[in-house]
């Protein structure tokens, strides 16, 4: 994101603090990203739509409290969306769902000693089922949403080193089990 874009966003946010209608352009800009983020964690279009609306209502309700904290504005949106997902699963007491795209898995795997067929993908899914939820959340934010560690730390309310550690631990397990190299390792 360029300096100019950050300045523009900042000026829209300042305007939105006194006039919520001014927030419309940021809503349009970030709606898709937040919706997909919620959809990946629910696998339910209607539910993702409801959580997305609630996320933006919460954003407007709290925009006066928003301050720049060294992370992009979008990280604040992800944080509020994460809280909405957490609230939903706490209420429903259901098992957490992660919906992942097959194409994206293949994109992420840079090198592999074995050919990635259906069977390998099923094994990977079984492996992911047993990963702790916090590790999966970090992986989703890192590889699907392409957030950096500072943003992940802010979104999940953990330290930056904690976010790095969770990612590397999960990747390490993946590497050992599947003998693969994953993009964005660094």
């Amino acid at each position, binding site marked *: 994101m360029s300096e100019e874009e950050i300045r523009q966003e900042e000026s829209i946010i300042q305007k939105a603090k006194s006039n*919520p*209608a001014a927030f*419309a352009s940021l*809503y*349009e800009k970030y*709606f*898709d990203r937040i*919706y*997909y983020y919620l*959809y990946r964690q629910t*696998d339910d*279009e209607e539910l*993702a*739509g409801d959580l*997305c*609306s609630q996320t*933006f*209502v919460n954003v*407007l*309700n709290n925009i006066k409290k928003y301050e720049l904290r060294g992370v992009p504005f979008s990280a604040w949106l992800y944080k509020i969306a994460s809280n909405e997902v957490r609230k939903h699963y706490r209420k429903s007491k259901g*098992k*957490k*769902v*992660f*919906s*992942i*795209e*097959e*194409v*994206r898995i293949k994109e992420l795997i840079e090198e592999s000693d074995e050919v990635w067929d259906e069977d390998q*993908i099923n094994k990977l*899914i*079984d492996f*992911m*089922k*047993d*990963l*702790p*939820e916090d590790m*999966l959340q970090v992986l989703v934010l890192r590889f699907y949403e392409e957030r950096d560690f500072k943003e992940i730390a802010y979104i999940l309310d953990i330290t930056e080193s904690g976010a790095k550690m969770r990612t590397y631990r999960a990747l390490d397990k993946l590497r050992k089990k599947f003998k693969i190299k994953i993009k964005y390792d660094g």
Partner: protein
Amino acid sequence: MGRNEIRLRRHRMTARGIERFRNYNSVLKRHEDNKRIKKVIRVFGFFVVILIVVMIIIFLSRWEERSQAKDPVNTSEVIEK
């Protein structure tokens, strides 16, 4: 049985299905409704506080009156002392 449920999608998500959820006017309306409810709660809370303070004042003044009635001070006795 794992800790999480992982579902695999064969196709990439497209922007087509998502359009029906995009509605800033409804978000704005819900925000205004929330603001109104918050205001009503704040005003109600303010009146409750005022009511409690008034009740405390009434209670204290009655208690004072009652304690004075129980133990009347005789002025002539005070002067003699």
